[in-house]
């Protein structure tokens, strides 16, 4: 299906499987013993590490389940703490449903939107800087660092604590967050008699997304990569990229300006 709708990239792609299966006899070694040997040694090493680890460190087991006693904080398993951390900045429907779905779908479409034929099968940064920088930013800076924050720096009330600080469940944090339509320069616009408050957020988000459209028409004629991508692939990349960058942007707005929501509507908030 993906092959069918691709224009210029298709010819280039079709030549690649042949290149991949081209016998390079001189460069090949027997799997027995060279690979099987490494696998065997690797299995033993990992097996020993796992066994020693299991003998020395016990899996946690707390009090019996009690639905009437909610622990504070209630943390998800560590690998989902990045998602739980996003709940600080977005509502559950966005941080808990839309963003995780976009992460999975976004990962799946990577091979179809990255049409750069270079860097196939070897380490390189120079030949694909955008792809690697974006992936590293998403994986290391967003996913891994949010997990680390969730595991080590969140205490009761989901407040920030240093790992060596004692958790004070009665710590009072002033809730000073305001919605963007009620903030500073937007305040006079937020008067529902002039505009609906929801229009401001809508306009801002449309402006944010339209940067991609402007960039497309601005660079289309001069930039070879954008021309080759075509509008569909470019659009998918732009939506995924801007959504991803929306997270650090919202973190910044929250931490620096105490902005709660950018777009407030009766049905949902972003």
């Amino acid at each position: 299906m993906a092959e069918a709708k691709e224009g210029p990239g298709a010819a280039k792609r079709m030549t690649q499987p042949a290149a991949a299966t081209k016998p390079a006899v001189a460069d090949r070694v027997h799997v027995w013993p060279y690979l099987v040997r490494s696998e065997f040694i690797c299995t033993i090493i990992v097996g020993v590490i796992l066994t020693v680890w299991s003998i020395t460190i016990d899996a946690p087991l707390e009090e019996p389940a009690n639905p009437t006693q909610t622990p504070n904080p209630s943390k998800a398993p560590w690998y989902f703490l990045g998602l739980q951390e996003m709940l600080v900045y977005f509502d559950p429907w966005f941080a808990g449903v839309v963003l995780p779905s976009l992460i999975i779908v976004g990962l799946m479409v990577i091979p179809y939107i990255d049409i750069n034929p270079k860097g196939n099968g070897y380490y390189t940064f120079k030949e694909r800087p955008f792809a690697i920088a974006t992936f590293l930013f998403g994986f290391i800076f967003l996913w891994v660092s949010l997990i680390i924050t969730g595991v080590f720096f969140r205490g009761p009330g989901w407040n920030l604590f240093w790992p060596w600080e004692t958790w004070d469940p009665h710590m009072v944090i002033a809730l000073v967050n305001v919605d963007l339509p009620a903030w500073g320069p937007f305040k006079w616009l937020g008067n529902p008699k002039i505009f609906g408050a929801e229009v401001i957020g809508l306009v801002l988000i449309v402006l944010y997304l339209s940067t991609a459209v402007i960039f497309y028409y601005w660079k289309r004629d001069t930039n070879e990569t954008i021309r080759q991508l075509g509008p569909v692939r470019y659009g998918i990349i732009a939506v995924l990229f801007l959504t991803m960058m929306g997270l650090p942007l919202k973190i910044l707005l929250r931490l620096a300006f105490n902005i709660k929501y950018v777009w407030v509507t009766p049905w949902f908030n972003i």
Partner: protein
Amino acid sequence: MARLKELKQKVVESQLWRSMFRHDYLDTPRNRVLQIMANVWLHLHPPKIRRHAIKIRFTWCMGGITFLMFLSTVITGVILMFYYRPVAEYAFADMKYLEFDVPFGMIVRNMHRWAAHGMVITVWLHMFRVFMTGSYKPPREFNWVVGVILLTITLLLSFTGYLLPWDQLSIWAVTVGTNMARATPLLGSEGPFAQVVGVTPRYDARAFLLGGTLVGPPTLLRFYVLHCIFLPILASLLMIVHFWRIRKDGGISGPM
């Protein structure tokens, strides 16, 4: 050395040895290939492989370690299933039984848990390595997609298993995790447009997942069945596809 050779000769020519091994093993190219091709477990591999592909620096061995972690959890998981009952009244008591009474019960449980956590980490590192080497590029696009699904299943396997000890840690972690389902647009009772669709806390995405409005006994049974039957079978099927596609897509990736 000469004595050793003599001894080996004697052993190899003895009736007992001959009755077990009909012929000797000669280290010829043909035999090296046959070792792989004629072995049902090893024939996942090609008989020959590109030289750079066996370098640990290139593959980090992460896919293999992930599979090893999966096998460890399967073996320890089956043993745990002998002693564990997914019923709210018994589950926690069975954990204590495993911990204090069952011979090697605690080690088996530890191995299951640490291998599961290890698998989450190795699967991420595997994805990271595959991205860094650009190994998702044509002709391997679809195998990357299968890999992303396997990554999701790994997380789901770990998450469904998290509930089974039935202690405070597990039910509240799962409560936090599944509360998201309540906010699903259109399908969750607290999500956008819930009133338009008319979903209620009793009939929405979260209630479907939990078998009720709370993480309770029906949830335990659901997660147990998903954890021990549905997800492992699904993961195994996709792993078959994943490994097969490595061969079909031209073997392990490398510079063209």
